[in-house]
């Protein structure tokens, strides 16, 4: 069956792209942004993390299409003379990495717990479901703000800067595992009573083997759809925390940090330092959300039957 999917998938994907031009556009936009971010060390004319490589005399230059620009700086410079194009490339990289890793943690905690709850049922199920409810009732962003704020107040901004990436990943990752647990649990409960699972059990399969080898592959679709929207949420959360000064430091800026540090310059007329990273962030978020919607429709089993 999987061989057939591999054979028909490209054609189905093309047909789907023709039917949903918005999703195709989103895929192209997100693909190019991710590609450029991945190749940032090769594409960027300047190392934005190296303070010695920029010159204060270049500070506040506008993008290339405006008056008074410098051809060396395609998107202009920020208050320190940092090349904005390079900073955005590297910043996007950090934002994407934090978003993807945070969701990986969410899935790594949530999926096993959800499967366990579905397969064992009974008291285990009750405990997991209650824990998920409690975790979700505490808002992610508020919890993240409190944890990072205490970290900063207790150990100082210096330590926060040093451990910003792992901290953000863990804080955003731990806060939203219940979504994966709920989805995995609901999907696994449906699968667990199907004939192929009964057959596997009759053939002497153990609990762990059945769950990982038979149930998990069959519930991947809803998990992939969930992961997409979760990545958008995680990127947005990281940007918000960095904007508040509780995330990535100015020396190693993500998109959120760039937006914050540019914000002070906006009233001096240098709007691009804030607006350009902001537009990239929005492009990423909209693409991921649109793609998530399209994936949901594409992987919907009812669609295949039609």
């Amino acid at each position, binding site marked *: 069956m999987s061989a057939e999917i591999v054979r028909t998938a490209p054609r189905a994907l093309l047909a789907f792209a023709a039917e949903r031009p918005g999703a195709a556009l989103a895929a192209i936009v997100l693909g190019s942004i991710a590609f450029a971010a991945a190749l940032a060390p090769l594409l960027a004319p300047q190392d934005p993390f190296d303070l010695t490589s920029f010159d204060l005399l270049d500070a506040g230059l506008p993008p290339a299409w405006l008056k008074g620009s410098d051809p060396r700086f395609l998107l202009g410079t920020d208050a320190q003379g940092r090349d904005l194009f390079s900073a955005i490339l590297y910043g996007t990289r950090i934002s994407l990495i934090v978003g993807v890793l945070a969701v990986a943690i969410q899935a790594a905690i949530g999926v096993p717990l959800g499967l366990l709850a579905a397969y064992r049922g009974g008291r285990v199920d009750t405990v997991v479901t209650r824990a998920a409810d409690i975790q979700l009732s505490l808002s992610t*962003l508020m919890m993240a703000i409190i944890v990072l704020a205490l970290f900063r107040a*207790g150990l100082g901004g210096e330590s926060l800067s040093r451990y910003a990436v792992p901290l953000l990943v863990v804080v955003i990752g731990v806060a939203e595992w219940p979504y994966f647990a709920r989805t995995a649990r609901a999907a696994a409960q449906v699968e667990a009573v199907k004939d192929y699972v009964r057959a596997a059990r009759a053939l002497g399969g153990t609990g762990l083997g059945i769950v990982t080898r038979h149930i998990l592959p069959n519930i991947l679709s809803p998990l992939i759809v969930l992961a997409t929207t979760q990545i958008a949420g995680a990127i947005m959360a990281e940007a*918000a925390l960095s904007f*508040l000064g509780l995330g990535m430091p100015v020396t190693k800026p993500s998109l959120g940090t760039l937006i914050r540090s540019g914000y002070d310059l906006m009233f001096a007329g240098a709007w691009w330092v804030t607006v350009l990273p902001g537009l990239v962030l929005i492009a990423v978020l909209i693409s991921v959300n649109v793609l998530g*919607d399209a994936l949901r429709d594409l992987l919907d089993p009812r669609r295949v039957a039609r």
Partner: protein
Amino acid sequence: MQAIAAGLSFVGRRLMQAALVMLAILIIAFAVKDALGDPLREILGEAVPEAQREELRRELGLDRPWPEQLARYLGGAVKGDLGTSTIYKRPTLGVILAKFPASFELVLGASLIVLLFSVPAGVYCAVRPRTRGAQLILGLSVLGISIPVFLTGIFLITLFSVWLGWLPAFGRGDTVRLGFWDTGLLTWDGLKHLILPALTLSSIMLPLFIRLVRGAMLDELGHDYVRTARAKGASPLRVWLAHALRNALLPLVAIGGLQVGTLIAYTLLTETVFQWPGMGFLFLEAVTRADIPLITTYLVFVGLLFVVTNTIVDIVSLMLDPRIGLEGA
């Protein structure tokens, strides 16, 4: 009669739970304060001889075992004493309460906008799902969810303050003092300052609520009673508003109430963008300057808001729908 008794017992249990959660929050706040804060340095500064430190430590009871200190902290908390701010040199609760009106009025303004637009828009999208208007509203709501609240604020400031110069970008403007409450709602200047922050805050809640109202309405419209009402000759408008909407709003109260933590976080972001002198702005200042007593008091206060809202939502849900929660009573 039995139903009333069951209801009362439910309310009693819910209040017990709320009290327990508050106790847990206070213990956490005490632990944070104990681990991060050094009250001696906050009071005396660095350059004070050890003997004098020791004396003050004894005087403040800081040499006592921690259960005793915790008991003293909880005792103070009941009387509204949660410590002294190191920045402002005043009781922390007073400092935070003085900023409460600003945050409250911001949330009030945003909530009014959300209420005014989300219910009609959501109902419209549910009863006329295939029209262009509905598609447009839903498309815009995807856009609204995708744009972070601080960027919405920055774009609004760029447009209305920097380019057009119509509305102010910072602060609350002129306020009037009514007893202990500083209000910006009674002056033209204060209202003008409220417009952009309230719009910004509502921009993130509006799409969410439009989708919620639409989803709840769609659920209700599929029920038999709607068909029955139509068959009896009730006009579509009456069926939508008097029957379906009334039932659809019930789950909304619950879901809306549970969003209070998220709402506080978004308010904090909005206050940062507009330098709105509310509790969130104060909290970030406290974090930057490591004012541990003020930070922990903020945590307790936010926890209290959270617990009170959740308790009220549960009790209101019970009053609106007596089936909820009585089975286990």
